């Protein structure tokens, strides 16, 4: 075969592979909507999202996911309250203060934290953190929104630390040199020059961490407690969206209303994480522009 022709064919085959991510993403959207859309027609979009009662197996059933949606948001916000300050502080320390020698050990350790399977975090939350919090607060059960928030916070840490660290270290050296030359201390340089410049990169890190937390399934399934009522306190059991899907899909007959409702939850979840990703993407692009010095 003529080599030009061969090259062209190879190029198109590779293009097809390169488009695989988009094909799968489209596939996910199609499957979710095909299976889940009927529930929106039956219940109504607003009643589905803002309905306060989730009783899928009652007669008549109620398919309101506000308790599940609120639970997801609650534990995600809770996890960020912990993970953002801790993650940011760690990333500053790693990028500016830690000696290079130690850096080669600490960075892989943080990556290891990301490599631990979620079911292991779930086990730890169930058996160690849950009982611990139960004793401290004198609760009837240790599996609560707080327990889930702490575990999700730990799981979001590696994302926030590594991406913030990338953002901080990608700031051109001249920024730091200028500030130090003007007599600023190292901390003043970090807090007044580096961090403001890195802010949009840090925003990307935090949003991707949030995406990780809200989409996390096994940990919340194991430690959040599972009560599908409207969350009223951090110290009570809740049931986030992901946990609901994982816990109930096995019992829902294929094609039933309950099955459709679970796919409906997945649609909402997918839209939320997609939004997070788009925002993170925009922030990251803004940051790259800024660093490259417009």
């Amino acid at each position, binding site marked *: 075969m003529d080599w030009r022709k061969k090259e062209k064919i190879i190029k198109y085959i590779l293009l097809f592979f390169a488009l695989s991510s988009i094909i799968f993403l489209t596939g996910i959207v199609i499957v979710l909507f095909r299976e889940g859309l009927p529930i929106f027609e039956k219940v109504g979009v607003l009643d589905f999202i803002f309905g306060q009662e989730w009783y899928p197996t009652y007669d008549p059933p109620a398919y309101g996911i506000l308790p599940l949606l609120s639970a997801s948001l609650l534990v995600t916000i809770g996890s960020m309250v912990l993970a953002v300050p801790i993650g940011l502080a760690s990333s500053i320390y790693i990028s500016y203060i830690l000696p290079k020698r130690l850096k080669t050990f600490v960075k892989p350790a*943080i990556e290891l934290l990301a490599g631990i399977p979620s079911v292991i975090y779930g086990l730890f939350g169930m058996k160690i953190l849950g009982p611990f919090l139960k004793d401290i607060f004198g609760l009837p059960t240790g599996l609560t929104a707080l327990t889930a928030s702490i575990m999700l916070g730990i799981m979001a840490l590696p994302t926030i630390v590594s991406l913030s660290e990338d953002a901080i270290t990608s700031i051109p050296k001249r920024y730091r040199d200028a500030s130090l030359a003007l007599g600023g*201390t190292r901390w003043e340089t970090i807090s007044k020059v580096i961090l403001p410049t890195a802010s949009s990169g840090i925003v990307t890190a935090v949003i991707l961490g949030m995406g990780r937390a809200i989409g996390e399934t096994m940990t919340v399934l194991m430690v959040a407690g599972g009560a599908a009522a409207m969350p009223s306190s951090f110290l009570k059991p809740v049931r986030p969206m992901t946990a609901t899907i994982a816990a109930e899909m096995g019992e829902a007959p294929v094609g039933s209303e309950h099955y459709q409702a679970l796919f409906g939850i997945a649609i909402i979840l997918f839209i939320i994480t997609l939004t997070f990703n788009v925002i993170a993407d925009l922030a990251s692009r803004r940051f790259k522009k800024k660093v490259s010095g417009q």
Partner: protein
Amino acid sequence: MRDTDINLEKRHSKQKYVFALLGITLLLVLFILGIIIYFVFARGISVINWEFLTAMPKNGMTEGGIFPSIVGTFYLVIGSILFATPLGVFAAIYMTEYANEGKIITTIRIGVNNLAGVPSVVFGLFGLGIFVKFLGFGVSILSGSLTLAIVILPTIIRASEEALMAVPDEYRHASLAMGATNWQTIKNVVLPSAMPGILTGVILGIGRVAGETAPIIFTAATYFQMRLPDSVFDEVMALPYNIYALVTAGTFPSKQIPIAYGSAVVLLSLVLLINLIAILLRLKFSRNQE
């Protein structure tokens, strides 16, 4: 003059406190990592023996070993890597070697980023809808491997892309100047030099697949099996799913929780080992480049 001296001293002592606080925070993060690993080993290591690793489970998962879970996880890892590696590497080759920076690359990259952000349980639903139901593979190794392959695809694409981009352009120019076609250059020059980086990505993918639970709950996993699967259309036991099932739905906790801890030790050791290999590979790779 003296005023500014005092002021400077204040500023420096403030810096000292802030740095100490930041350092303590980092130590806390490392402490958390340590305590989780310690907890798993402290609870589970006593269960581990040769029989536990190589025997079949007995009496409704209350006695015996976890051999089928280990084998099942192994099958799922192999299956998903077989699908995801060529897909991911070829995608990365197109992105780095063929596409000009522009709309196509941006679109593909947005696709990869968004795929990476999809919650794992949503992958599970997708696998259920497509592989289990629509294509009729049923709850099986095949459905689970395909689902997991999509989960790790972004990891492999990103790692391969990074590895390919790190190959110096001189290599390509030299090969092209000698009359090689673009594809010959990629196959014989670029890919071999990017191999360690690609391998690191694949290894990290293995670590991720071994521990993923939510994508296989509806697509591959079963709780109890007295034999090994003998075809890709069989259900499998898998370490992470079994840990979850034993601690949440076990009917005989006093006997089953220790089995869960033992499985957790095996899974965590596997994942730690895999990550260690990836870290060492990367260290070696970056040293070679310097």
